[in-house]
């Protein structure tokens, strides 16, 4: 059976198209476990996984935990608020302490971009990035790709519109890199204040007008807008934001007839998305959540046994 040759999963950027196909195929095969009466396989029996979360997270954290449990791994959960981190311990010391418990994999979510890279250099264990600052959220992008592939049969040639707070979104970065790698036409849409410098070089076309992004789109990916951003002068008010960037039933008419709507969650209904859009049949939001567990099982499985490999030089 093929496997990933990477020690870590730090970002989509490091994955080849073949790597991505392998992850998606493996995830598709592992989905079946959820339909069994006993939702467990012995694949990771005897392996230890540490979930190291420095940011509040419900969805990603429970998704990883479920994936680990379904693969029969031993799990240690470590949240920043209950740990020695609140006593002033540095990330590196925390990691070295955990490392001496000989885990096989460490799943890390951290508010600082590059925190998983710091761990990767210092730890023998495989590091899985579960979201680092505004940088990347690779497992989210992979589950998005799996979801689109299931519904559309493939990804190459699709028009995918990513709409919302692109600047502060690690999902926007990972999705853009992944979907453009797989041959989709990716459009990123946000007010100019929320579009980071040279975002087009990640593989997206840029627009400030939602109509242009939605025009004949096959997939609409909405990003969460943090309402506190209005105080940083990124946009005047959530009302005006919704008027110009909110996904409504009316605007959905611009997209292809068989378009689908996705959202990495958590949603702000009435800020970036109308309820009747979010809850309509074209919404894949709950498929994303189900696929999240499968994709994370695939990553855990494909990286297990890679601890101790030389970390690759990555960005």
């Amino acid at each position, binding site marked *: 059976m093929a496997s990933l040759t990477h020690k870590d999963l730090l970002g989509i*950027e490091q994955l080849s198209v073949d790597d991505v196909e392998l992850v998606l195929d493996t995830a598709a095969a592992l989905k079946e476990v959820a339909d069994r009466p006993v939702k467990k396989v012995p694949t990771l029996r005897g392996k230890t996984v540490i979930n190291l979360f420095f940011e509040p997270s419900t969805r990603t954290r429970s998704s990883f935990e479920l994936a680990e449990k379904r693969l029969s791994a031993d799990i240690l959960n470590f949240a920043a608020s209950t740990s020695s981190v609140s006593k002033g311990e*540095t*990330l*590196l010391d925390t990691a070295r302490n955990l490392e001496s418990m000989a885990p096989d994999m460490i799943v890390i979510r*951290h508010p*600082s*971009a*590059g*925190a998983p*890279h*710091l761990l990767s250099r210092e730890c023998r264990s495989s590091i899985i990035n579960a979201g*680092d*600052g*505004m*940088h*990347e959220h690779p497992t989210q992008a992979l589950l998005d790709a799996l979801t689109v592939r299931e519904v559309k049969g493939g990804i190459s040639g699709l028009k995918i519109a990513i709409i919302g707070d692109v600047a502060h979104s*690690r999902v926007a*970065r990972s999705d853009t890199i992944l979907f453009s790698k797989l041959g989709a036409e990716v459009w990123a849409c946000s007010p100019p204040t929320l579009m*980071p*410098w*040279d*975002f087009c*070089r*990640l593989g997206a076309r840029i627009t400030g007008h939602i109509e242009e992004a939605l025009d004949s789109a096959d997939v609409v990916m909405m990003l969460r807008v943090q309402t506190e951003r209005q105080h940083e002068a990124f946009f005047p008010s959530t009302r005006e934001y919704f008027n110009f960037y909110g996904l409504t039933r009316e605007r959905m008419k611009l997209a292809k007839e068989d378009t689908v709507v996705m959202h990495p969650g958590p949603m702000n209904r009435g800020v970036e998305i109308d309820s009747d859009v979010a809850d309509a049949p074209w919404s894949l939001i709950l498929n994303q959540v189900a696929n999240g567990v499968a994709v994370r099982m695939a990553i855990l499985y494909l990286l297990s046994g890679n601890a101790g490999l030389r970390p690759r*030089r*990555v*960005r």
Partner: protein
Amino acid sequence: MQFILRQGTVVDPSRKMRRVADVAIDEGRIAEVAPRIRKKARKEIDARGLVVAPGFIDLHVHLREPGREDAETIATGTAAAARGGFTAVACMPNTQPVNDSEAVTAFILERARAAARVAVYPIGAITKGSRGETLSEIGEMHRAGIVALSDDGHPVQNSQIMRRAMEYSLLFDLPIIDHCEDRDLASGGCMNEGYYSTLLGLRGMNPAAEELHVARDAILARQTGARVHIAHLSTRRSLEFVRRARRDKVRITCEVTPHHLLLTDAAVAGYSTNTKMNPPLRTDDDIEALAAGLASGAIDAIATDHAPHNINDKMLEFDRAPFGIVGLETAVSLILDRFVRTERISLDRMVELFSTNPARILKLERGTLADGAWADVTVLDPEQKVEVRSSEFLSRSRNTPFEGWKLVGGPAMTIVKGKVVWTV
């Protein structure tokens, strides 16, 4: 005669001199520079194949004493300077406490007399505590021995305060060295805002944050007649503003650092905190403009912005680590290898950038091998093989992005007031 450096290539732009000659030193001063000196000295040094230049002066270092002696002290920082070929350094006031009073200035000079390997020139804070609110006691600090004013690291945001500081500096003809940064525009960023900040998901500092304050300072300097020196200038447009102001006869000068000449923000990929400094590493387009400015004379000086940090402070997440890298022990080799050896600048120009011009900007009686001047001499070996190893640094800190670089050319001997303070 104390000693004679025999048959080195003497490069001294202050005398428009470049020729093989003997340099005689007596009682701490230059006694004579001549093609062949017949007299004998107590000590004779064969300088054939070496370059003999007026002592290099680093306009911009952080010695961390008082307050952060775990990162650097006046003793270790000046030892690093001597090893790096510098005979004098000007130290920034962002110590703890800030050098904003006669007492702190006097303390630094006192410690320097006791422990420094090279000459130390303190720079006084523009405002009390470098808080940008009220002027510090500039006259009293001047009396105690400061050579310039700066709120480096905590740049003056209020333009009215900056205007007053410039006006007041005229009394003492002290240059104002400004770290140009509009803090609102820089918005808490930790690297240059551009493609790489987007790719790496790090908060960017808009280059306009620097350019805006360069332009502001040029406008205020023109109006007040004050002398302004732009610290660690890092963008193409900043240099354009300086150039334009100079055409308008504004008394403005600028320095660049070796790292802003040699590295771009692409080096941040990998998230090494030794690529985190302020101003941040910029783009290929910027370093191209800076290199051109170095050659053309638009840039006056090279300074290191030597910023030692304890390793505990640097081994953090990128956005949490402090800004700054050490530079005293790598600057000369980097410029010799990457600029002189590649003929992007001449040796004469390099000496201007490291010695003649810094002395002129700070109005020091140094930077020359004229008869009777202090015998501060930097001897360079253009063929020296150098590999940067931070473990060999005399600085107390190790935070360099140049670890492992292989370079050709480096300092061979450093002489301060006729005394050899360092030799290979």
